[in-house]
Structures are given as C-alpha cells and as structure tokens.
C-alpha cells in the first residue's frame, strides 16, 4: 500500500532480515536492535512504526492537518480505522487516537491526520501550535472495526459531526479512488461554515461526481448550508429519503451520535449503521462506597482503594503505567489483573474475579484488586 521512500527502502532490503535475526538480537542484548538503529536515523526501526512529519497545514482556524511519512513497518489501514499517535510534549510522551483521512490508495504512502484543537485539548493544541515539520512521531498499526467492508456497499451514507469527519473522509476518498458507482451521501454537521474541515475539497468532489451528494448542516443560522440546526428524524427523512436502503457510517460528538443511533434502532436498522466513538460517555465514578486496597504487584506498592479508576489510582501512587485515551478506546493501558473484581466505569458491568487483561483507564476496583504493574 505504501510506496518505497528512502528510509523505507533501507529497511525493506535484505538488511532488514539481518537486523531482525536472532544473531542481531543476541549481539544487541539487552537493549535490542532498534535502540542502536535510531542512532543513525530516528525513523529507522525493526519493530516500531515511526513517522516523520512532512507538512503541517491549518485548514480551518482551529484545526491542523498533519502529513506523515511512515517507515516500512506501517502496514496500511482500512478506510475508517484509527491509529494511536504518540508525540512528546515538554519531555512527556502523550498518546491520542486519530483516524487517517486520506484514501487507502494514496500513491505517495503518506498518512494524513486532522485534529481539532479544543480549548482543553492538550495534545491537539500542541499538534496545532508546537509541531514542526521534521519531527519524528511514533504510531501504532491501524486498529478498530469501524471501516469500509471489503465488499463495498453500493449505497453509502456517511454521517459525521465536527472532527468526526476524518474517518468518513477517508471512506469517501477511498471510494472515489475505486471509481465507486453507487450513490454516496456525505451528511456533515458542524457549527458554522468556517468551522468545516475539508469544506472546499468536499464542494469540489460534489461538483465533479454526479453520484456524490454533499449535505452540510450548520448549527448556526445563515451559514449557507443545505440544512440548518441539529440532527432529527424529520430532517433526515427530508434530506435522505432512502436512508433505510443505505449502509450508514457515523462518527461525531456523543449527543449527535446518540440521536442518530436512536433513529436507526427505532427503525430496526441497527445492523446497517456502523459507528466510531471519538469521545466516550462520561465515566460514572462513585468514590463513596470504595472498599479494599489496590495492590500493584510488580512495583510492590499498595494503595487504599479511593474509588477512582485503576489508572488514576496507579498514577496517584506514583506509578506511570502506559496510557492513552483514558476513555476505554485505545487499549494502550491494558494490563493484567491477577486478582479481584473491577467495574467497567462506562457500563457498570462487573468483571470476573480471576486473572484477565483489563483496561485500567475505565476499570474501577470493587474491593481488593491486584494488578501486574
């Protein structure tokens, strides 16, 4: 999927086989080959996906679009999937999930990520203001089940809100590269016309492709969109009368997604709606009834259960386990629970008591819990 470039071809050659051999591992024990390769070029790695930032653009006032050149370990993605981006801010690594917005068929092998910088968005603000071309970032492989099925649906309805536009943008661009013949409706919700990411490109696509219909819905009045206000059944029925025949893909803010999901569920169309949550519903934390203690076995530390998530409690105990989204999406914080019961803060569901892997950012201990941290 990615064409070779300088650093990729280096690692794709026979040298790559030598570097990932047992002998190379033996000679570089205990640090591993990667720790020596990065001496020569920070993107060289046998195991990790690293990428160089080649361009930083600002499509709208509060968004930033990054173009990344991944090394040869990047295995590509399916349109709609996300990846975990790790950047370093003031010496501290931060991980966030972003969906590539480019077509999976992009010939240059580059990855395009767009982030909206919220007032409280620590990482997105840094991406927008502090990231310079030339910076090397770490990526995960693509992940997530939200993606265009391999058997492309004929009638496609893409619904997005705000920065949730990125995965469906990738779907649209991918379908266009594949000369998709079926009808595609691109229904996008945002606050004002100026806030809309990819506005001019989408207008151009709609103008050039008879099978693509662009419906822009702005929350503010007099923005010149096709619709105004918020998602509703009536509005949907008027704008996309055949929505029941379409395979729908949805990504946006929680309130909007809930409204869309409700309509599809009421119509019994739940299996035709694919969705991606960028932000999770708020976690329910009840510190009042906390009992027992949290045992961090590997670090040999003990804390009185405060009722907070295990990630928060680990950090309060001075530990710094790996973490990412802190809302149960990215799985970066997954670790082994060796004993005890935890409650999923999103659903209230209780876990089994035995040994299992849990996401500590959304797990609240119920009584004494032992973790392998």
């Amino acid at each position, binding site marked *: 999927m990615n064409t070779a470039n300088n650093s990729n071809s280096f690692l794709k050659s026979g040298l790559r086989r030598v570097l990932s051999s047992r002998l190379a591992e*033996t*000679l570089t024990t*205990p640090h591993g080959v990667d720790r*020596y390769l990065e001496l020569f070029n920070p993107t060289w790695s046998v195991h990790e996906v690293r990428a160089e930032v080649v361009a930083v653009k600002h499509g709208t006032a509060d968004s930033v679009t990054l173009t990344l050149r991944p090394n040869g370990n990047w295995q590509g993605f399916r349109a709609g999937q996300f990846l975990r981006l790790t950047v*370093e801010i003031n*010496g*501290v690594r931060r991980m966030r999930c972003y969906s590539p917005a480019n077509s999976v068929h992009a010939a240059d092998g580059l990855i395009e990520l767009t982030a909206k910088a919220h007032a409280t968005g620590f990482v997105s603000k840094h991406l927008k203001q502090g990231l310079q071309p030339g910076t090397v970032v770490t990526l995960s492989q693509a992940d997530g089940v939200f993606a265009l099925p391999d058997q492309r649906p004929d009638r496609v309805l893409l619904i997005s809100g705000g920065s949730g536009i990125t995965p469906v943008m990738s779907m649209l661009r991918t379908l266009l590269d594949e000369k998709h013949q079926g009808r595609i409706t691109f229904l996008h919700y945002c606050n004002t016309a100026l806030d809309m990411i990819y506005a001019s490109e989408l207008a151009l696509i709609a103008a050039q492709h008879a099978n693509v219909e662009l419906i822009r819905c702005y929350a503010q009045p007099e923005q010149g969109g096709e619709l105004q206000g918020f998602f509703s059944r009536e509005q949907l029925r008027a704008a996309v009368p055949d929505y029941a025949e379409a395979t729908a893909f949805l990504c946006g803010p929680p309130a909007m997604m809930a409204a869309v999901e409700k309509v599809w569920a009421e119509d019994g169309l739940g299996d035709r709606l694919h969705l991606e949550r960028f932000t999770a519903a708020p976690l329910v934390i009840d510190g009042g009834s906390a009992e027992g203690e949290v045992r961090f076995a590997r670090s040999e530390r003990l804390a009185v259960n405060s009722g907070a998530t295990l990630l928060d409690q680990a950090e309060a105990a*001075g530990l710094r386990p790996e973490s990412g989204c802190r809302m149960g999406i990215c799985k970066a914080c997954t670790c082994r629970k060796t004993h005890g019961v935890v409650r999923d803060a999103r659903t209230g569901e209780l876990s089994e008591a035995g040994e299992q892997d849990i996401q500590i950012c959304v797990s609240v201990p119920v009584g004494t819990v032992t973790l392998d941290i």
Partner: protein
Amino acid sequence: MGIFQKLTPEQFEAIGTELDAIRNRVLADLGERDARYIRGLVKRQRQLEVAGRVMLMIPPAWPLGVAALGASKILDNMEIGHNVMHGQYDFMGDPALNSQKFDWDTSDTARNWKHTHNYEHHTYTNVLNRDHDVGYGLLRMSEDQAWEPRFLANLPLTVILHTFFQHFVAVQNLKLENYLVYKTKTGAQLREEFKPVWKKMRKQLAKDYVFFPLLAGPLAPLVFVGNVAANLTRNVWACAVIFNGHFPEDVEQFPESVIENETRGQWYVRQLLGSANFSGGKLMHIMSGNLSFQIEHHLFPDLPAHRYQEISPEVQAICRKYGLPYNTGSFLRQTLSTWKRIARLSLPGRRKPATGAAVPANDAESPRELPLAA
C-alpha cells in the same frame, strides 16, 4: 551521643517537611530538560559501545576500544540503568526509559535488582540484616555484625568482590551465604532462584565472550580479552563508587530496631547518616551515575540524578541548620577510609555501646509512614 537522641520529634518532622518541599519542587519542574539530558547520554553510551566493539577488532585501536567499551558499560549501568530503573524518567512515558521495561548491560536481571536495590537497600539503607548491600553476605562491614573466622579474609574478599562485581550483584538476590554458611536455604531452593539469573547471565556471557569474539574471526582472542578488560573496568569502578557511598568510616550502620515505628523524618535522617558523597568534576559525576551525590540520591532516589548537584546546596543548608553531618571528601579519601574500615573489621571487636547509633524508643502514637521505596 547519636544524632537521633539530639533531635526532637518536631525537628524530625520539620526536616521531613523541608526535604519533601525540595522533592516536590523538582518533581513539578520535570520536563524537556531532563528528557534531553538522558537521551543525550543514551546516545553517547550507544556511540561509545558501537565504536568500542569496532575498535577492539582493529589491533592498533585495541586499547581505545577497551576504554570506549568500558566507559559505555559504566554509563549504561550507572547514569542510565541504575537511574532509569529507579523510575527517575518514568514521567516521560517512554517505554525505552521506563523503570518496568528497562534492562541493562550486566548480568543481574532488572527484576531482581529492583528488589535488592530499590526495595531492600533504599528502604533499609545500612540496616544490618535488612540491607544486603552491607557486605553482600560476603564481608563484615559493621561492628554490629558478629565476627566469624571467615571475615579474616575481609580484604582479599573485597578485592574479589570488586573483580567479579557484576556476577556478585547478579546472584545477590539468592543470598548465597544462607546456603553456604548459615544452612538456612536448601540447594533446591537455590537452583530454582538461580534459573532467571542464569537466563540473563548466559545471554551476557554469550554476547561478550562467544559471539563478538567469533565475529572477529582470527582476532577472536583479542576481542575476548578486550571484553574481559572492559567488564573488569566497569566492575571495579562500580563497586568502588558504591562502597564510597556507604562505607567510609564516619558513615553509620544501624541495628534492626531503628526501623520500628520510624517516621518519614527519621527515615530521611537515616538516609543522610548512612550515605557519603565524593567530590569531582562534571565527568566524575556522570561516570559515577551522580552517585558522587549519594546523600541526595538516598534522600530522593526517584528524582533525575543530574538534578542532585543543583539541590545539594539546599540539602547542606538543612544539615547545617539541624546539626546533621554531611559526609563528603575526595574520591581517594573516601576510598582509603572505606578500605581502612574493611581492614579493621577483619578482626573481632564490637562497637562500644556509648558511641553507637542507638535509637530512642519512638513515640507509640507517631504514625508509621511508608518509606519511599522508589
């Protein structure tokens, strides 16, 4: 009179509060500067290692190769490995510099070392029977340690410990003396505990003494001897630095009773009394992993070590304020003093009770604070 009798509970508490304030201030300031420092050192260490291994295969450059590889191993073990595994750089969230994931270029497993060092040695610093670093089960390092005939060999055994330091540290967790001398451990137990150690040891031995020599073809013996020399350099230096940090003659050892109901303030004072610094330039500090600031390290084991020099004047001011000793001197002075102690303790003889670091019974109501086992 020991210093413990002179200080009031309020003074202990005040010392704890003042030292905590230094720690919190540095913690709040961690960031880019620390990240750049440790990454710079890692880069330098890897450069020295690669250069050293290459030069060992080029006869005229062989002595330089030994020096470069020795320096690389010293940096890897001390300023990088020791400090990273204390969790000093965990705040960065970089898996390559994380205390739970890092492993070092020495025979000891990271896991065992974190137990004997971070937990036993740093929590129970210089407490007899608790801190295994007091003699490594091999030497007599304190008057309070009962004399046995085997301690007549204190001096030659110290030389042996320096020479094979990485292997002694690797088996430290096994507490071999319990099997060999005191018979409190069975051979089966020992074999079980040795398994993970041997797994790591084997990899280290294979790398330095089989694969790199083989890579040099006909020059294999040269590379073999070069690796022996580099490991020996690191062993002797690391052992000397560690001994200077805890065993110059004025540094106190403590009986086990000291840790009963010990408060945070008293724990801090014990760390102060049980550690010693040595002076030197920038290179000396880096090559000793900043253990030239052993006192600051024992007060704040999880602060990035390159910060110790900066906070040292504040620690000294607190020592002056409360009449606490701050033991420092040249490397040579501390080394001579340490060897004098080792020689003296070869022979029987107990400390006179009046001069001991006896500890007053603690106020039963004083809260038991968990010491910082970084």
